[in-house]
């Protein structure tokens, strides 16, 4: 088998053994859920319900707040008990709707279109939009927007992202093993809506069972293929995955559609399948609850809005005090101050680290060792960029690639001086954005 990859990147220990091969377990109905209005990139959703309203599972409770936005749905049945600011899975807080369960899980009416693949692309897109689906790998870009490229940008390839290059995370892996045919159907739906002629599923070499299964499922499909990939972080980043799979380079500052490609996470493909076949809105997802201190690490299918604390309790709690609680993977995820935040549509994992694992070393002077330059998958000069940001020299920072940085964290991962490069670069990006707004 030939394994493909991209230039640069790092090879962190994958720490996946905690929850790898744990079958997806249904998380019991939560007592309350908190549905955030900002689970995606774009305008926040607009609440359609008020406190005291009775809602059914799958009922739309918030409308898209603009073109680049998504509607939100109740993930359990019960009563709306609060509409307020709540802790957000990416840290800080955001407007959200709290629903308290009636204990019954009464659903809205669903359908079952067995011939769902015969539906028109317009109908498919409509169902995907109404289901409130956004990218489930973490970034959370509204899916139907990706499916509506301008006419002068024809799409010929759809790539499903089953890379899961973040250490610890196992939810996509397990989903592929358990829902292979459904994911393939999701891929076919995507190809039809985009009239793309080629479909690919990118999977890293540390998931040989998923590669083998998908190969088997795609054996008779001449337009669909599995792309086995070498183990390398950040291969799940859109531009790196597209390059690894197709050798096409997304132009700097451009979107994948510029090279005729759309990338979707495998979890998203599964949600798309459910939305198009059953008209089922996105109300649950698989999340890995893992880490060395979790008593029983698991892959859980949990309702959107379930508080993280409930998930940890379901996994038997922790064997040691929590040092860090990370929403997402450890390379790009967010460290949360508490477990109050709920599962969001982009929550692929909850990683708990012990206090020892969470320890960090003080920043020291840059040695100019150039490790960051060697590993940068975007071919930038991270250390020089950070020096420029520190000196408030935005011109030099931009020359070093401030706008092209994808914040994958490879540079900070290898820095012997333990410089928080991503944080500095982020600061530079914010200053640059502010400066641009000032000019307009």
């Amino acid at each position, binding site marked *: 088998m030939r394994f493909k990859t991209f230039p640069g990147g790092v090879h962190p220990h994958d720490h996946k053994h905690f929850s790898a091969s744990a079958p997806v377990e249904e998380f019991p109905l939560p007592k309350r859920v908190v549905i955030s209005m900002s689970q995606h990139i774009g305008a926040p959703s607009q609440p359609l319900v008020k406190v005291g309203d009775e809602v059914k599972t799958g009922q739309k409770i918030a409308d898209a707040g603009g073109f680049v936005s998504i509607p939100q749905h109740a993930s359990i049945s019960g009563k709306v008990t609060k509409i307020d600011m709540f802790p957000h899975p990416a840290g800080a807080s955001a407007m959200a709707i709290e629903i308290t369960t009636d204990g019954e899980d009464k659903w809205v009416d669903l359908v079952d279109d067995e011939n769902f693949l015969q539906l028109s692309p317009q109908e498919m897109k409509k169902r995907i939009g109404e289901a409130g689906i956004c990218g489930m790998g973490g970034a959370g870009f509204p899916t139907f927007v990706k499916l509506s490229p301008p006419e002068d940008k024809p799409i010929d390839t759809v790539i499903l992202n089953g890379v899961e290059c973040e250490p610890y995370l196992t939810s996509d892996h397990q989903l592929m093993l358990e829902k292979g045919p459904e994911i393939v159907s999701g891929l076919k739906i995507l190809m039809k809506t985009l009239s793309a002629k080629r479909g690919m599923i990118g999977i890293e070499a540390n998931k040989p069972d998923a590669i083998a299964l998908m190969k088997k499922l795609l054996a008779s499909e001449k337009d669909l293929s599995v792309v086995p990939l070498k183990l390398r972080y950040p291969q799940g980043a859109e531009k790196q995955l597209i390059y690894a799979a197709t050798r096409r380079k997304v*132009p700097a500052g451009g979107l994948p559609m510029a090279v005729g490609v759309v990338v979707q996470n495998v979890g998203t493909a599964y949600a798309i399948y459910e939305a198009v076949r059953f008209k089922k809105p996105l109300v649950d997802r698989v999340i890995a609850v893992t880490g060395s201190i979790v008593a029983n690490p698991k892959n859980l299918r949990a309702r959107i809005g379930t508080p993280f604390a409930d998930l940890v309790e379901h996994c038997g709690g922790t064997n040691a005090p929590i040092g860090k609680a990370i929403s997402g993977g*450890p390379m790009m995820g967010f460290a949360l101050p508490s477990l109050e935040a709920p599962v969001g549509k982009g929550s692929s994992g909850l990683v708990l680290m012990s206090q020892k694992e969470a320890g960090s070393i003080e920043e020291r002077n840059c040695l*100019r060792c150039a490790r960051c330059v060697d590993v940068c998958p975007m071919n930038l*000069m991270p250390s020089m960029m950070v020096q420029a940001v520190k000196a408030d020299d935005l011109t030099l920072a931009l020359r070093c690639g401030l706008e092209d940085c994808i*914040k994958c964290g490879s540079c900070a991962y290898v820095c*012997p001086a333990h410089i928080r490069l991503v*944080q500095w670069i982020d600061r530079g990006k914010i200053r640059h954005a502010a400066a641009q707004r000032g000019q307009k």
Partner: protein
Amino acid sequence: MTEKYKVSPAPHLHDRTSIPSVMWNVVIALIPALVFAVYYFGLRSLWLTLLGVVSAVATEALIQWFRKVPITVTDGSAVLTGMLLSYNISAGSPWWLPVVGSVFAIAIGKQVFGGLGNNPVNPALLGRAFLLASWPSLMTGSCWVKTSKSAVMSGINLDAIASNLQTVAPKVHNLVTGATPLKVAQLIRDPNIYPEFSQKIFNGLIDLGTLKNLFWGNVGGCIGEISVFALLLGAVYLLWRKIIEWRIPFFYLLTVFVLTFFFGGIKGSGYSLTLPFFHLFAGGLMLGAFFMATDYTTTPMTKPGRIIYAVGCGVLTVIIRLVGGYPEGVSYSILFMNVMTPLIDMLTMPKAFGKVKK
């Protein structure tokens, strides 16, 4: 729900390298060279090295205490500077030479610029340049010691003509046997000085026996530069631990190899494949290419920049050796290219992934 966990920016994992791990690994890689120095020159080379190290560490601690900044001497960087400085003096040097050199290297070469990571040139090489300018005779021969294992200190294989030389031209004999191999190579560059012997001596230089002596370190020279074998051991370790990258040493050595093959001979000597090896093995090239030209702070960060830098070092080294006034050019070449580093970095800034050519 009152518990507060640690909040910090991603990434939340680290590959566990640190400045101390890098520095101490380089120190480890330099130890074989010290073992060979003790074997050939005696324990004095060890004491001189320790003096250099202690002075470097003390100077760094004192200045950091004076500057009221954290004292970071345990990170190994001052140890490394003291070690490299001592490796660049003769085992016959007076005790104060490594002390003065180390104090200068740390104080003027490093701390005045703000310490680790801010020095424009390699501090140890700056210290060496300072010693060379201040006590040229001590640094270029007056205190060279014979290796205890070899009758002929220079290590040049002149067995066939040695006795002959002693009787017919004792002056030439003393010069050839009392100098470092590169000094001899410099002496015979002018065929008018010892016309009747230059060809013979040249043949002795590129003789396999000479190469063998150079490889093991049975030659005259500075404490840490003599044994190619010991230095290569350390180099392999550094490459294996990914502390240094192959580009700088490879292109530096390649440049010296190619240039000395074509231009290293004397009048009428023709081309010889052992000559470039003589130039690779002799003097401080191995020490310089693997341990000093690879110093992080003073070398370019971009990959093409590293190649330009290394080729520059190689060209300058060969120019100094073949036409310059000094027999050896490694340290000045590296110092010169150190100064070029910021310029090289700016000129070779990489193009972001997906950036189209303009």
